[in-house]
């Protein structure tokens, strides 16, 4: 069974970059859903089963940090892993995000193998294409 993923970023080009990186990582990805901010992401999450979320921090309407907080407060979404994909490199900010419930952090610019590593760590390696 393949992964269903959600990419939340206000930048269309970043959503395309993440989509491409995930495909190049050799992951068995089925459906890819996209959202332009945290609010839209939450709406998708409440409608569709998502295996893993890749979210930016800085988004209009609802940030990635707020998205994680809302998901943690919802028992049906609390266990869905969220990976923050951001340009922010401050260790203090990364620690703050992980403390709020984000499961991993990828810094832009990223490489496809970083996605594979994160997905293997969070969801297990069994669904990765050889």
């Amino acid at each position: 069974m393949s992964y269903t993923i959600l990419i939340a970023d206000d930048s269309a080009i970043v959503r395309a970059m993440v989509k491409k990186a995930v495909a190049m990582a050799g992951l068995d990805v089925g459906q890819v859903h996209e959202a332009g901010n945290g609010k839209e992401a939450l709406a998708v999450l409440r409608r569709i089963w998502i295996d893993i979320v890749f979210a930016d921090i800085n988004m209009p309407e609802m940030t990635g940090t707020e998205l994680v907080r809302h998901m943690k407060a919802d028992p049906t979404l609390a266990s869905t892993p969220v990976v923050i994909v951001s340009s922010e490199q401050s260790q203090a900010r990364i620690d703050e995000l992980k403390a709020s419930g984000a499961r991993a952090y990828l810094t832009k610019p990223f490489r496809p193998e970083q996605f594979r590593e994160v997905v293997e760590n969070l969801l297990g390696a069994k669904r990765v294409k050889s």
Partner: protein
Amino acid sequence: MTNDLSSDLLAQALGRTMEDAAFVFAEATSEPPPFEGDVIEARLAYAGAHAGELLLATPASFAATLAANLLGEEEGGASVTGDDLDAVGELLNMIAGKVVVDLFGPDAPCKLGLPRVQRVRAEQHERALATAQAATTMVEEEGRRIDLSASVTSGKVPGAAP
């Protein structure tokens, strides 16, 4: 570790990000060629214990190449169309993440804002560049110019005289 706000620091962050993210190899120049045609300007503010703004500028004609390179696609590809401005904004976002940490240290107490991107006339951009506290101009392999400038608006300016 913190560093002084300087053109060298900006050149390092710009050159590195352009290489890593967009496969563009550029070198700093003290004799920048004039912009031909309009310029795409991206601005991004950061705020917290330190606040300020960064500005990235490229020729409008170069933005499509940057968008294609970010996606690893041929220029003019369907998924690239319309992403030109977005690409310049996103590159500045990546540069800003590096500059803030280089300036204020690995625990930089600042958050990055959203990039704002606009097309301006070359003269308008040159005036904005002249007011920056630090700036670098680089030229890529085909002679196209890329500017990065920075201003610190509150908190101590790293490297400034007391």
